């Protein structure tokens, strides 16, 4: 490589080239990742898959940028926002991308993806960024599951929801069809 210096004062400057190390890698293996997802405000995307053409001989991780996620009130159901593969296991792993209720509807966020691990050099990604678009909040769907067993008068009620928020409840002894404790909002 020959440095090129141009301009009126070009004769006054000497160009230098920094040392560049090029590594040629075998990228015959691919991790296919969706390039774009839609996330409802306060809810989660449908499950998306990351599919490898081949399991790594040792380990491989694909990370979503935590700082970008956090800055845009977006999160995942992954530990450390990382999909991890080992020498054994399933070549397809699913994940969810979710947004906090404070995320701004209509926002599109480009989340960088990076590869790490012992077998880093053996893989290329189908895309190196994931564009997440925040849609409108979904209709709340909250399901309360009654306990199947009780221990010394203690029962655990599971509550699932498709959206962030709060479950405000009253528990009364007896059989009622309506709630006398109306919730008033101001």
């Amino acid at each position, binding site marked *: 490589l020959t440095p090129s210096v141009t301009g009126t004062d070009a004769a006054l400057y000497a160009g230098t080239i920094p040392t560049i190390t090029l590594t040629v890698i075998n990228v015959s293996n691919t991790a296919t990742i969706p390039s774009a997802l839609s996330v409802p405000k*306060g809810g989660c995307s449908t499950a998306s898959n990351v599919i490898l053409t081949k399991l790594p001989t040792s380990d491989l991780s694909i990370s979503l940028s935590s700082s970008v996620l956090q800055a845009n009130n977006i999160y995942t159901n992954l530990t450390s926002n990382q999909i991890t593969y080992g020498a054994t296991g399933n070549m397809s792993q699913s994940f969810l991308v979710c947004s906090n209720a404070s995320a701004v509807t209509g926002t599109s966020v480009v989340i960088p993806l990076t590869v790490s691990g012992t077998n880093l050099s053996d893989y290329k990604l189908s895309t190196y960024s994931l564009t997440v678009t925040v849609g409108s909040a979904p209709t709340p769907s*909250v399901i*309360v599951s009654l306990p199947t067993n009780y221990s010394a008068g203690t*029962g655990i009620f599971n509550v699932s*929801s*498709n959206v962030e*928020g*709060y479950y405000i*409840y009253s528990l009364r002894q007896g059989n009622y069809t309506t709630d006398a404790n109306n919730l008033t909002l101001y």
Partner: protein
Amino acid sequence: VALSPVSKNSSTFVDLTPSTTYTLCGYYLNSTNTTNVSLGCQTFTTPNDPTWLQYEAVFNYSSPLNASQRNSLLCYITTTVGANNDYILNGAGESCNSTTGATAPEDLWYNFTGSTNSENNDTIYLIVVDNSSSSQTFVQNFMALFNSTNALTPTNLAYINNSVSGVLLSGVYNGTQTYVQVSTGNTTATVQSSIYNQTGNFINITSVSLTYPGSIIFGVGYVNSTVPSQEQLLNC
């Protein structure tokens, strides 16, 4: 309960009683408190639990105990048994008030703010909700208050008498009952017609009797008042 679409959300209810129907009603409220959705109500019945037991002892006095004396008796038994305050109760559902300088028992199971009448006898209950080692210890300690003929041991009689100004005549262990027996047992309550004293502006109820230990809660309303429910009376 704070809801998250990706994690398990749960709520734990304690002190549920066996074979009892409850109603759970709820709302969804969004994070910014701007939207709420009623989720309606669902009822459920807890299963029968034979390890839930009510141990009973009947105490007789030469004169009715005042509030301070009732508290002293409850606290002595609670301390001796080692159970939590809310698992030792008298017939009016009162528990030991262990606050320093307390002059009356506490109502730990309801919020009735009226006055409690005392008679020359009362029943003290120990409630255990399971067969755990701690529950077994409570039972063992409760039973140790009484001798082989089910009467209070002289030592315990003397200790309790010391805290109730010497009016305790006797205390007798009266066996156990399961929750189903307690909640469905038949009792006959007799209340003679109340007499309204126009001069003193008070209502006098002279004779109340029950065929089984328990309590009757009275409430007073205007002529056209809606008849209050048990829940309303206990928590008014």
